[in-house]
């Protein structure tokens, strides 16, 4: 097949799939074959423009596509078969839904006339995935196939991005029809609002100029909006001189090295970020959704502030926290409009009040909430991430994570200067995300250093994708903070359940070095803090997938922490927690929360 619009050309449904993907600018898809997608795999075989990454489990395909999407700003594409292929992909779709990641997932379905008959490998894919996707389609005829495919891309990437599934019965893949290109395809009803309301933007700017204790609270929406939004954000933050914090999902939109940066906020955020949020008088929330990991106890969340909330999804506004100035629109657009107005009206912050505010923030910073007690004999996990950061930092480094304590330490101790360099499962918190996500990132950035900060438990959930890495020569570096525990679970058991470590010990772990070798990759183990730097350098040098078994302190806890059911100003800090009876910091009411 050749490039260029093929509108009007006759081809089979399977060929249309390939054509439509190419016309949408897709260069790579992640997938796994099976009976119900054989015609598409046949069409794939007969062309060489579209690269297919063969995964080892369909969940891996979805997370790889998420990594690809998040690190490029493009739509990630997945191709799997009916029945078990589709159900295996469900976790990744929900993950993408929760984190607003654009995906197009193509599933094969049993032939149209067999639908509903419990045919071999039949399942109600659109039924199962209805709440797992932003939208989904069951294709009824080859005539509507090209429109649906292009529409799927439009829906996946527009507004609040998300996963879209297209279920294609096998007879339609074989059927011949006329192809139509992507020109003019948009949805007849789905038209998200991009421009913010001018009056509200004006009101927001007025409020910002009058603020005495302002803070920017930014989130994943800034990343979703594209690199221009991050640039616009940097300008506005510098212009105003206000402090800025971000959610887990928004890390990198604002440079970590900047003096206005307070670090991440929320359950495991910094003391200064959370106290600034608690005490502020004007909060400017940009593309964040007041998640419960961020707000803590909602009725005690930033009680005395006026709140501005910019979000492209009207359902995010006033969902958890009532705001004073809601602005529906693309956050990049709105920030640019705010900046323009701020400049045009020669606005300036209340300099004196702001100086006092920064002084107050300085005292919170001085609490050094991320300090920890290092050790000469045992590798502290925080130290491991710090060293990894020092030795790997740079614009061409991409970090993914699994889920658990290591994920939080990565967020706290790895610094991000640019957007799209940080891939993590925030909303769903899916163990098994990080390794396949790293593969997707590496596919998109072949020359980059791609490192997954993992836990020994999480990484086993999609370990089979090491085969994918080896097959496709993807030299990802899987840096496992091996504490021999499901550390995050163990920490909660210590805090809430009398240190009864029910089923949270990582028993019978594989030898990760041998495991790496068994896959055809490279294994490195490190147990001595003195050897850590050397071994990390060795890992970076290796041009192959690496499993790095970093043996760390087993029972380290992740602090600071806002215990569930508490407010931002009731954080517990590492040193205080060590002194107190740690089992009693969460009260009965907090225990039922997650």
């Amino acid at each position, binding site marked *: 097949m050749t490039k260029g619009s093929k509108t009007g050309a006759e081809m089979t449904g399977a060929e249309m799939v390939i054509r439509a993907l190419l016309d949408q600018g897709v260069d790579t898809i992640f997938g796994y074959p099976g009976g119900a997608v054989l015609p598409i795999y046949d069409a794939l075989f007969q062309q060489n423009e579209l690269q297919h990454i063969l995964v080892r489990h369909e969940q891996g395909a979805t997370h790889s596509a998420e990594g690809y999407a998040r690190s490029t700003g493009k739509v990630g594409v997945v191709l799997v078969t009916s029945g078990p292929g589709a159900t295996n992909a469900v976790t990744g779709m929900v993950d993408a839904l929760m984190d607003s990641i654009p995906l197009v997932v193509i599933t094969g379905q049993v032939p149209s006339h067999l639908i509903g008959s419990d045919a071999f490998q039949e399942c109600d894919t*659109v*039924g199962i995935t*209805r*709440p797992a996707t*932003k*939208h*989904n389609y*069951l294709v*009824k005829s080859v005539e509507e196939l090209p429109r649906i495919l292009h529409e799927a891309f439009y*829906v996946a990437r527009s507004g*609040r991005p998300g996963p879209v599934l297209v279920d294609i019965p096998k007879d339609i893949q074989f059927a011949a029809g006329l192809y139509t290109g992507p020109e003019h395809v948009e*949805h*007849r*009803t*789905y038209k998200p609002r991009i421009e913010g309301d001018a009056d509200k933007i004006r009101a927001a700017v007025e409020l910002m100029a009058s603020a005495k204790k302002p803070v920017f609270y930014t989130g994943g929406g800034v990343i979703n909006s594209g690199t221009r939004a991050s640039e616009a954000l940097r300008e506005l933050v510098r212009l105003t001189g206000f402090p800025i914090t971000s959610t887990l999902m928004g890390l990198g939109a604002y440079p970590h090295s900047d003096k206005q940066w307070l670090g991440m906020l929320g359950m495991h955020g910094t003391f200064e970020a959370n106290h600034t949020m608690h005490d502020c008088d004007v909060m400017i929330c940009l593309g964040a959704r007041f998640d419960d990991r961020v707000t803590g106890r*909602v*009725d005690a*969340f930033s009680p005395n502030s006026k709140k501005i909330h910019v979000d492209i*999804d*009207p*359902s995010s*506004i*006033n*969902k*958890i*926290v*009532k705001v004073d100035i809601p602005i529906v629109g693309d956050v990049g657009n709105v920030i640019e409009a705010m900046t323009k107005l701020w400049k045009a009206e020669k606005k300036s912050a209340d300099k004196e009040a702001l100086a006092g505010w920064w002084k107050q923030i300085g005292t919170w910073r001085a609490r050094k909430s991320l300090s920890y007690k290092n050790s000469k004999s045992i590798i502290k996990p925080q130290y491991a991430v710090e060293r990894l950061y020092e030795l790997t930092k740079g614009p061409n480094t991409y970090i993914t994570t699994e889920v658990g304590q290591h994920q939080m330490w990565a967020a706290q101790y790895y610094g991000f200067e640019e957007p799209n360099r940080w891939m993590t499962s925030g909303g769903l918190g899916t163990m098994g995300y990080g390794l396949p996500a790293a593969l997707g990132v590496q596919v998109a950035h072949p020359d980059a250093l791609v490192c997954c900060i993992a836990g020994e438990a999480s990484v086993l959930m999609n370990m089979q994708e090491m085969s994918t890495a080896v097959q496709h020569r993807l030299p990802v570096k899987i840096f496992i903070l091996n504490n021999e525990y499901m550390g995050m679970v163990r920490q909660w058991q210590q805090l809430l359940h009398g240190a009864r470590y029910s089923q949270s010990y990582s028993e019978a772990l594989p030898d990760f070095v041998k495991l790496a070798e068994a896959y055809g990759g490279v294994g490195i183990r490190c147990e001595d803090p003195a050897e850590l730097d050397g071994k990390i350098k060795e890992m970076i040098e290796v041009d192959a997938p690496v499993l790095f078994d970093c043996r760390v302190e087993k029972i380290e806890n992740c602090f600071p922490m806002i215990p569930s059911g508490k407010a931002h100003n009731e954080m517990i800090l590492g040193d205080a927690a060590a002194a107190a009876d740690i089992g009693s910091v969460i009260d009965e009411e907090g225990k039922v929360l997650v």
Partner: protein
Amino acid sequence: MLAKNEIVSRHVLSILVDNEPGVLGRVVGLFSGRGYNIESLTVSETEHDKHVSRITIVTSGTPAIVDQIEAQLGRLVPVHRVVDLTNSGPSVERELALIKVAGKGEMRAEALRLAEAFRARVMDATIESFVFELTGKPDKLDQFIALMLPLGLVEVSRTGVAAISRGPKAM
């Protein structure tokens, strides 16, 4: 914090959707998945050429919850428009019920007298039963059905509420 001490009230929502497979499933799934109430639901195609259907849902919640329901519905890809009729001026609400009453003698005569008083129509009659058709506001239907209960009420089928705003404008 939202919704702590706000008052729960009844709202009638009108939703225009593309009449495509699964659209009702999406709307109903949204309500069940997010724990919202459905007190009644009606759906039918209203503009055949444009494949547009109108769904009317009666729900209840605090103002914040109802706003959230509206926003969540608006987010569904095949949804054109959502209007909270309760919050947007005067509207007309009607429901139709078919009510089967069985009985003889004085009970039967009383059922018929009440039906006339309520302007219910007799759609079917045998010597020991009636099927009444009654159209009106849901509470009028409730009232009539309650009256039929001691008179031999056997079965009820209700359409759920259809509603539309008053005045010349479309939603």
